[in-house]
């Protein structure tokens, strides 16, 4: 009970030791391996890679293990690693039309070129606990489709042919895509930066905002034009060679939301786009992102900005969960200097209040009794 006790250093060391002990848990059980996390908790790995903006399954799995499965903590660990990596170039835009598609669904057409492919989805599972998973019951191999894949055209391109879909849009001449990890954010933002921020934004936050647009806070009448999940090549332009070479493949989820638009003085009535692109398999995030992207484009279409999801400063300033968790949790750090100042003020105001009341008591109380 004495302030000048030098306890900080030992306390921190002991706390870390206890944390490591809890992380390992019961020593009679084998320790979980990185390979097991990558193979069996793949969607957790995907979320960590997406919100950390770093595509590396093994390192993401290491972060998940290190954080005892706290995914935001894992995202944070991975971000802090990513920020130290040197930048040797920027890839050419991904060509999602050439995706090796594993899942592709459209809600706007019953059938379409390339077909509907369900892929590995929870959608039509019944959420009944599966006792067979209590044991290591054998699992059947997945079926493989025969033959090659026909090209799968984008649904938005079908509508664009009829001029019923807004263009993909063009960027001003000489526009270099921004990089929010290298430049400070400034408002208002261009859409490229906004999409970057949304792509690493918190899944839960974007989900709730997207949901709010469906419930009338900036309603945009959305349809899922298409969701596709699969692998695409990442290519880098090499100036020495004069053409792009493939660095490897990544698995991504893309969502093109189609939204109603009645037209304005500038544009004819046509459908508009909301776009979502996320590392790994994360349909929920990609869909929420495309709803929020569309809501944030309100000013492009002369729509009134009336709801939180349309407010760029509000959405982008609060979508990053590493920032959010840091600032919320920092409240547990010592604040006793400031609290002392407030304590002093409240005591003073309390004295003034009681002195003021003391004067009135004699005359006021009988009156109140009447």
């Amino acid at each position, binding site marked *: *009970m*004495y*302030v*000048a*006790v*030098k*306890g*900080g*250093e030992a*306390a*921190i060391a002991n706390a870390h030791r206890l944390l490591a002990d809890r992380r390992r848990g019961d020593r009679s059980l084998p320790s979980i391996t*990185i390979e097991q996390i990558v193979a069996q908790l793949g969607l957790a790995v995907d979320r960590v890679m997406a919100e950390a903006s770093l595509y*590396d399954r*093994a*390192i993401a799995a*290491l972060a998940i293990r290190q954080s005892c499965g706290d995914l935001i903590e894992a995202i*944070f660990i991975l*971000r*802090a*690693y*990513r*920020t*130290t990596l*040197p930048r040797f170039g920027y890839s050419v835009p991904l060509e999602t039309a050439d995706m090796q598609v594993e899942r592709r669904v459209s809600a706007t057409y019953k059938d379409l070129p390339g077909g509907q492919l369900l892929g590995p989805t929870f959608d039509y599972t019944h959420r009944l606990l599966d006792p067979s998973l209590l044991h290591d019951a054998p699992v059947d191999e997945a079926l493989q489709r025969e033959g090659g894949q026909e090209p799968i055209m984008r649904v938005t391109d079908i509508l664009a042919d009829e001029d019923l879909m807004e263009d993909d849009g063009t960027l001003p001449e000489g526009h270099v895509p921004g990089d929010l*990890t*290298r*430049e*400070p*954010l*400034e*408002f*208002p933002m261009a859409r490229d930066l906004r999409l970057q921020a949304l792509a690493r934004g918190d899944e839960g936050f974007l989900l709730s905002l997207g949901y709010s647009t469906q419930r009338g806070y900036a309603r945009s009448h959305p349809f899922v034009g298409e969701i596709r999940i699969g692998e695409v090549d990442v290519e880098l332009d090499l100036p020495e060679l004069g053409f792009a070479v493939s660095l490897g493949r990544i698995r991504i989820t893309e969502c093109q939301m189609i939204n109603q638009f009645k037209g304005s003085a500038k544009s004819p009535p046509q459908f508009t786009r909301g776009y979502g692109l996320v590392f790994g398999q994360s349909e929920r995030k990609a869909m929420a992102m495309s709803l929020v992207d569309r809501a944030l484009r309100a000013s492009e279409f002369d729509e009134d900005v009336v709801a939180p999801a349309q407010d760029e*400063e509000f959405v982008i*300033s609060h979508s990053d969960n*590493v*920032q959010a*968790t*840091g*600032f*919320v*949790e*920092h*409240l547990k*750090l*010592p*604040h*006793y*200097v*400031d609290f*002392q*100042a*407030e*304590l*002093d*003020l409240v005591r003073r*105001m309390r004295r*003034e209040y009681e002195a003021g009341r003391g004067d009135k008591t004699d005359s006021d109380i009988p009156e109140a009794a009447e």
Partner: protein
Amino acid sequence: MTTAASELATYNFAYLDEQTKRMIRRAILKAIAIPGYQVPFASREMPMPYGWGTGGVQVTAAILGPEDVLKVIDQGADDTTNAVSIRAFFQKVANVAVTTRTRAATIIQTRHRIPEEKLTTGQTLVYQVPIPEPLRFLEPRETETRKMHALEEYGLMHVKLYEDIARNGHIATTYAYPVKVEGRYVMDPSPTPKFDNPKMHMSEALQLFGAGREKRIYAVPPHTEVVSLDFEDHPFEVQSFDKPCGLCGAENVYLDEVVLDDRGGRMFVCSDTDHCEDRRAHGHCGTMLAYGKEAAR
């Protein structure tokens, strides 16, 4: 995995890569050139959470050299857990000399306090800042507040202070009390108690402010005017304490209140632990010193 793991083990001097340090130094130079102006910078993710002082840590990392002597305080104390942690971080990634002595330090990183001892030429005080924008709680939008600064439109702040007086008879801001720097920019001094505001005025030391999450750096160069906002008939006042420090007997210093028991027992001790220890080493003694020693045992 092994290559990734071995790469993880090597970091540049003071953690940040040299390119990032150059970017931060450019922001610092601009901040010094325009006292009190918030310079946007491309804040990095640091290996400690936002809110733990990532802005201050980046500023320190960018200005730290191998010859520097670093002191880190939180709430005025060198031994609070976060100060210990940040000090250990720089020992680890920069192998730099550290101290708890205010006088011996060339760089002092702080959260919520300015040391009691007067800082001198050649010293740099690095503040950790949570919300750099003094107008934020009056106007939540960055686009608006930047405009207000540009137009020197600070009426809203004066109205807020006036409303305090109208409601309470005095200004009810006790920490993060707004100041005007060199007659131009209204600045947030970070959540230091207003007790510390006068120490910023005409300081011989360079004062740098880093806000990591909000991506802003600002500065008060040495010998710069820093004036706490007030009114002619309600001049700025600092907190005063009824009793001197219980351990070293110091007066006119900022004190922490320590709860001694569940019967209302309290003692007040220096928030600046180095200042307190220094005084005790020089034979100053407070009324509670004996009690403290006993309790520590």
